């Protein structure tokens, strides 16, 4: 048993921190909120230089052949500085393709980052909803997954459906997700510039997060031969990645808040000496540590115990999502009034928390899946 980072993983993390530190991500986020979206740096070249696009692609296809936990380490660093890098969309897409034996030609340009993919998030069934479903554009009810029709020859099909708030869809070259073909889920890869594909770029509240509403109308697709388990695992991988990213943001929120609590005085004492502040920050630490432990679980389970991966990834997201909500609000409140002003960094982390909790099914769906998985385990026992 060994739940610690390897030397290579420590190096990967430090390198990521270094690479990201070259960008003024927080300043850019604030400027973009003020309408100057061109202030947001294009970080994809840096990602390519670091080899992140190919993290989860086999070496045979030009990737690094690493695993989910390594990707989580990079996402954590992105979360620390709110880097708007397109890995949350790209990596789960690359994982589906990597699990497909008929996608070899697609993989190499994705591994190098020459082309960028976006994952079309489709949530696998639960114990109470047997459908594959997508995030709704409006309201709380989840629509069904896109549908595919075989279009004659070989592995090609046409796909129709709507996917709302797809992370990193704008500007992606390839869209990879799940569609229902003859009542069964299949992996599909769709060129973003193909006929019948439209991507409406949008942002919501957090300027660092690029989102797109993807509309597919008989869009030509390659049907992938990835297993159903692999298609489901992509969803759980996305949950793990957003969990890791969120915990990175929690780290920064905690560090900045602790520093301020040491320096700021009121009634003649540093505010960090008051139990209300101290216990609130300790609570952030508690949730952060719990989240970190679950990242290890998810990282191990993806290949070490695939049957547990939905549980592990759901639990990681559930804890991390709540941790970020609490940390972002604590960051504001520890800073007193100034923490709620435009020029402060705390609102940027708050905006991240507010949006993240409602993407990719939301923190709530991840929490529900934990319950569902455990209930299914109990039934099986």
């Amino acid at each position, binding site marked *: 048993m060994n739940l610690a980072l390897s030397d290579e993983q420590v190096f990967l993390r430090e390198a990521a921190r270094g690479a990201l530190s070259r960008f003024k991500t927080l300043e850019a986020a604030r400027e973009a909120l003020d309408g100057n979206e061109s202030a947001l740096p294009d970080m994809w070249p840096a990602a390519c230089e670091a080899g992140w696009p190919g993290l989860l692609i086999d070496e045979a296809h030009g990737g690094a052949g690493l695993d989910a936990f390594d990707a989580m380490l990079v996402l954590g660093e992105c979360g620390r500085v709110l880097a708007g890098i397109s890995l949350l969309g790209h990596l789960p897409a690359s994982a589906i393709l990597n699990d497909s034996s008929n996608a070899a030609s697609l993989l190499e340009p994705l591994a190098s980052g020459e082309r960028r993919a976006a994952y079309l998030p489709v949530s696998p069934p639960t114990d109470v909803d047997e459908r594959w479903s997508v995030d709704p554009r409006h*309201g709380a009810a989840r629509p069904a997954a896109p549908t595919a029709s075989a279009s004659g020859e070989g592995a090609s099909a046409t796909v129709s459906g709507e996917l709302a708030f797809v992370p990193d869809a704008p500007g992606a070259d390839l869209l990879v997700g799940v569609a229902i073909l003859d009542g069964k889920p299949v992996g599909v890869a769709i060129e973003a510039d193909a006929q019948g594909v439209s991507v409406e770029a949008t942002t*919501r509240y957090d300027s660092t997060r690029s989102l797109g509403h993807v509309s597919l109308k008989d869009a030509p697709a390659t049907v992938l031969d990835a297993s159903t388990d692999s298609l489901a695992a992509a969803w759980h991988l996305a949950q793990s990645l957003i969990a890791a990213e969120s915990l990175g943001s929690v780290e920064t929120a905690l560090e900045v808040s602790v520093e301020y609590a040491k320096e700021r005085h009121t009634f003649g004492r540093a505010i960090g000496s008051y139990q209300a502040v101290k216990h609130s920050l300790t609570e952030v630490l508690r949730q952060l540590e719990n989240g970190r432990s679950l990242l290890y679980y998810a990282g191990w389970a993806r290949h070490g115990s695939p049957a547990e991966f939905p549980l592990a990834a759901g639990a990681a997201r559930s804890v991390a999502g709540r941790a970020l909500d609490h940390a972002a609000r604590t960051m504001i409140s520890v800073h007193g009034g100034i923490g709620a002003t435009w020029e402060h960094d705390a609102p940027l982390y708050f905006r991240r928390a507010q949006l993240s909790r409602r993407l990719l099914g939301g923190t709530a769906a991840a929490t529900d899946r934990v319950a569902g998985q455990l209930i299914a385990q109990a039934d099986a026992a």
Partner: protein
Amino acid sequence: MDLDDTPEQAAYRADVRTWLEAHSSEAPVLQGPGAIEDEDEIIAARRVWQGKLAEGGLAGVVWPKEYGGQSRGPIEQVICNQEIARAKVPSILDAIGVGMLGPTIIAHGDEDQKGRYLGPMLHGDEVWCQLFSEPAAGSDLAAVQTRARLQEDGSWRLTGQKVWTTNAQFASYGLLLARTDADVPKHKGMTMFIVPMDAPGVTVRGLRQISGEAEFNEVFFDDLVVDAGAVVGGVGNGWGTALTTLMYERVTIGLGGEGLGYNSTRFAGAIAQDAHARRDPEIRHQLGEISSDLLAVKFTGYRTLTALQKGQIPGPEAGLAKVTIVNGAIKAGDLIADVQGPDALAQDSEWAYMISFLPGLKSAGGTEEILRNTIGERVLGLPPEPRLDKGIPFSELRSKEGAAA
């Protein structure tokens, strides 16, 4: 125990309603078709409207008649507010002046001050702002550093910075808490001043909040000179004067829960629109808890009002209503945005605005932690925190903190 008007109250309500029916066409339109959009024009129109309300007896209901008020009780004030809301016309522009600062001047000001300032305040001719909080004196108001130095000619020279100042950008006057003696313990060396906001040496800068809007201001004082007549309540008595203002602030909060628009009807309405969410036990559970708490605050307001009417002064526990409202609204915002999804966070969404506004409101006027300290000590009688700043001259305190940091 009942919630209905007495015959006298019903008669007053009828009078107010009659006046409003006769004059509501003169009120500025701020929402919907034909609404004024220019910020300056809105302010100008609301000044005029406040003047009309004052003439009609609908502003300063509880102010003594000799200062232009109606010498009526707090229930009549609430009835007046209810009728103004019912008529869908704007309320007075200067709620801070008329609700908190005017009463402070009535309590502590001298006759010259009352004669000079109260009339224009009540009629909206001169809007006021409250200049208490500072960057280093938020929760700990007695730590103000804005310095007023007595000049040889008896005038005062003021230098310092205030924050979280509502309405400063168009206010004529402000009520300012300044340190006049740094060599005595911090609660003892303060004095309250009336300061002109258009004088040289006063700079107002909008302070943008999470939403991007400047809901508050920073105000900088750079050798502003005021004469001896600007002192309210006597030199060195600033803390006592400030406590009066804070008491009126609590009254305003105690009665105003519904006024902020954070109420169960609004939040339930948002959930009711989603056919899926309104049947989801988890959503309903949260809505039910939030709504119960907010309903409680509404009736706590009526209890406060009953107490006020009997001449009792609300204690710090009225601040618990603020805790309930702010935390309830925060939960409601999260719930509604969870139901509606990211669209609730769109630029023009009322919910995005609320979600952005609440974290600042939570800290405004002293953090929840300080409020809970105060209530624990004054209401429950629990012992105070050990105070490291007690009896220490303010000037020494500052250097001590610097050393500890």
